[in-house]
């Protein structure tokens, strides 16, 4: 079946999470993403969770999700044969994406000049922690360091405790999403105007400029000199924030903006229709809010999170139950919509992962192949590039020798 990007070849020199998530999106929509791995593999192969808790490089869930639909070619870029093979792939590519530490590809002799020489039409997207220029160019980072520095982590958590970040590596997925947009921008500039440029993506800047509050906390300060206090989402408003219920928790953030709907959800009980809760003059009084919340908490504790959400949906009240992954993966809504995808992998067997990121009926998402085994496509890809057999043999031997970074 035709896919939107099936005429695009991507030379993918990214590793870990953010870059591979971007190239995964390109691959999901049809691009032929050729993933170059060093003989020791993408470090994401050593990140959990592992199937059966076995830390095997072909059993990483993180690697699996990020690399479905890609082909893996192992090259030792420290060798002449490795670089020659790289050049032959680059010559056929429409886009190069890389995430080495700034300065690394230049040291290896495969910098922007190298790619311009072998393929002057291909743009390159370079991903790094802080960008290719500036005093922190060579600084190291992790998800925590990037998000703490550049995301809105400072204002997350309890006032009297330390700031606390998002789950896992969520911030790197956000960056990956921004990188995917940059890749398409670079591809469009090349396609329409023949402009091949090296795009500089700083993971930090993808958060400094990002929509999850930080863009606005910055301008809020410029406008008003106000800063954003770190404060928890405890119940506040009528209702607002997170409440316990019979079997867990429900989030009613901002639900109070439509008190008419809240009353509808509650079934207009006498306590809730008291004018002191509807009068704008008294509604914001903290004591009255607290009093209201005593009643509301009682209502919540008598119901399960699903029962509460059903009532909220009926009345069109903003609400979300706090689901566990067990709740989520077994939920009828997402199953019924065909969201989850099960893929067969030669080592892992059947693996269930989140499916399409969005539904695009024409040329859209497809799962064509599971994540590649390390170097699974080295010979296949190099033959497609018409590389002489002698060099292919040399590349494969160098790759098999393995070695260390």
């Amino acid at each position, binding site marked *: 079946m035709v896919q*939107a990007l099936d005429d695009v070849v991507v030379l993918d020199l990214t590793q870990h999470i953010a870059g591979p998530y971007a190239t995964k999106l390109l691959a999901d929509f049809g691009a032929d993403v050729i993933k170059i791995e060093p003989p020791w593999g993408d470090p994401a192969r050593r990140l*959990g*969770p*592992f199937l059966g*808790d076995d830390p095997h490089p072909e059993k990483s869930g993180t690697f699996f*999700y990020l690399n479905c639909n890609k082909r893996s070619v192992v090259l030792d870029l420290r060798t002449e044969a490795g670089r020659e093979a790289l050049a032959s792939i680059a010559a056929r590519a429409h886009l190069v994406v890389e995430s080495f530490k700034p300065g690394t590809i230049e040291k290896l002799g495969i910098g922007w000049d190298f790619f311009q020489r072998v393929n002057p039409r291909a743009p390159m997207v370079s991903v790094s922690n802080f960008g290719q220029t500036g*005093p922190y160019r060579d*600084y*190291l980072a*992790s998800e*925590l360091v990037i998000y703490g*520095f550049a995301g809105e*982590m400072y204002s997350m958590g*309890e*006032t009297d405790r*330390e*700031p*606390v970040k*998002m*789950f*896992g590596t969520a911030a790197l997925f956000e960056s990956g*999403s*921004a*990188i995917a947009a940059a890749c*398409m*921008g670079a591809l*469009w*500039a090349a396609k329409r105007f023949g402009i091949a*440029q090296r795009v500089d993506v700083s993971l930090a800047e993808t958060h*400094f400029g990002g*929509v*999850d509050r930080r*863009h*606005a*906390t*910055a*301008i809020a300060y*410029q406008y*008003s000199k106000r*800063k*954003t206090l*770190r404060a928890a989402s405890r119940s506040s408003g009528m209702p607002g924030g*997170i409440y316990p219920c019979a079997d867990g928790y429900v*989030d009613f953030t*901002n639900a109070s903006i439509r008190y008419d709907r809240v009353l509808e959800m509650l079934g207009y009980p006498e306590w809730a229709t008291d004018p002191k809760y509807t009068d704008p003059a008294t509604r914001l009084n903290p004591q009255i809010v607290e009093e209201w919340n005593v009643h509301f908490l009682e209502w919540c504790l008598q119901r399960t999170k699903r029962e509460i959400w059903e009532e909220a949906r009926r009345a069109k009240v903003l*609400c*979300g139950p706090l*689901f566990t*992954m067990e709740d*989520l*993966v077994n939920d*009828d809504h997402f199953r019924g*919509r065909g969201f989850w995808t099960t893929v067969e992998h030669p080592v*892992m067997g059947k*693996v*269930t*992962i*989140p499916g399409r990121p*969005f539904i695009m009926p*024409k040329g859209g998402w497809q799962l064509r192949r599971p994540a590649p085994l390390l170097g699974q496509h080295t010979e296949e890809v190099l033959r497609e590039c018409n590389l002489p057999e002698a060099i292919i043999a040399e590349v494969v031997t160098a790759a098999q020798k393995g070695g260390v970074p």
Partner: protein
Amino acid sequence: MSRKPLEGIRVIDLCVVWAGPFATMLLADLGAEVIKPENPHVWQPMTRGAMARPPQAYLMLAPAWGGGYPNNVPGERPWNYCPTFVSLYRNKKSFTVDLRTPEGKDVLRRLVAISDVVYENNATGTLEKLGITYDWLREANERIIFVRVPAYGSSGPYAEARALGIHLEAVMGHTLLRGYEDADPSSNTAIYSGDYLAGAQGAFAVMAALWHREKTGEGQLIEIAQAENAAAMFTQAIMEYTMNGRLLTPIGNRDIFGRYPCNVYPAKSPGTAETCDDRWVAISVENDEQWQGLVEAMGNPEWARDPRFATNEGRAAHAAEIDARIAEFTRERDDYELMHLLQAHGVPAAPVLEASRMFDDPHLRARNFFRTQTVEGAGTHEYVGPLWQFPETPVEFYQPPVTLGEHNEYVYKQLLGFSDEEYARFEALGHIARDFDPSIP
């Protein structure tokens, strides 16, 4: 102005709140002409602010990012000044039209006919009430790409559920996965990471669909169910469950891959959290070599030379003790000094930066990250820069955050060919305005 990747592509922004406007802003940054039709008689909550005319008291009750208006007053035209709005409406155009009237809807139809993309993320049913459906758009323009961002999708039991980013993240598991390991989930702060993910991917989706259209001539309807889109961020928790049947629980700032130490530590603070003057440094050690770097940076203290700490297993077993020791080291030191010291020893570290401090950061200054813009009635300020740097097709902030109806003349006269008389008639009918109707609070 230099070439732009998406110049000549016209996008109609029927978006609200954050996820939709972020997508169209990224398209605008890449050169698309993004036009926002706005109804001066209808308030879209939480787009140009919570209210058209917020009382002074409301501004101070709202968090700074919602209520931090210029000089802490609502101002003459408050709908042009809300921090969340101005952060998302650079490089876009605005015109006003009442889409509830037949002649107003016809204006939209004529604009659709000369556009490439319509993008919307309204509550389910909102556009249907106005008669704006994919079929209606396609009748006006066969090649149109229509992107919809319903919270849970247009089908299934949750299709009608009302949600902001925070609610669908709760459903997708995020709220039970993040936060302090020793506190209940209500100690979390409301966040909107799903708006980020779906927004940036919406821009990607449009550019992929345009690529497809270039080859086939086909437009289409794209559905980004924001909840489904957010799932990727929780991959490790999802796969821990689907592969191993295990449910993850919050681990605070620790590393999900079990590398120690990884946390935020107190730094020398000029004040307390109540005035946002507390300071913290994030440090994350990913291997034994980095641990040795940290030990050296701390001056090789005896406790750190303990051979049990030389391996990750040992550090994991004594994580609390190590964290307490590191905190002793960081507590009286400046957060930036700690970053430079630790980075010089090969250890990933940075201050947990309170937003106002980014304007003093020498790295961001060296990269010319900030852009100065002037909004009529709000004054001249520095805004955060673009998400990426394109050297040959640079992202320029050529249009400051757009004020209501700023491009009325451009859209009606230049794009749609209205005569002066027709324009005056539409003005008289109440379509054309720079202010929201006085009846709107």
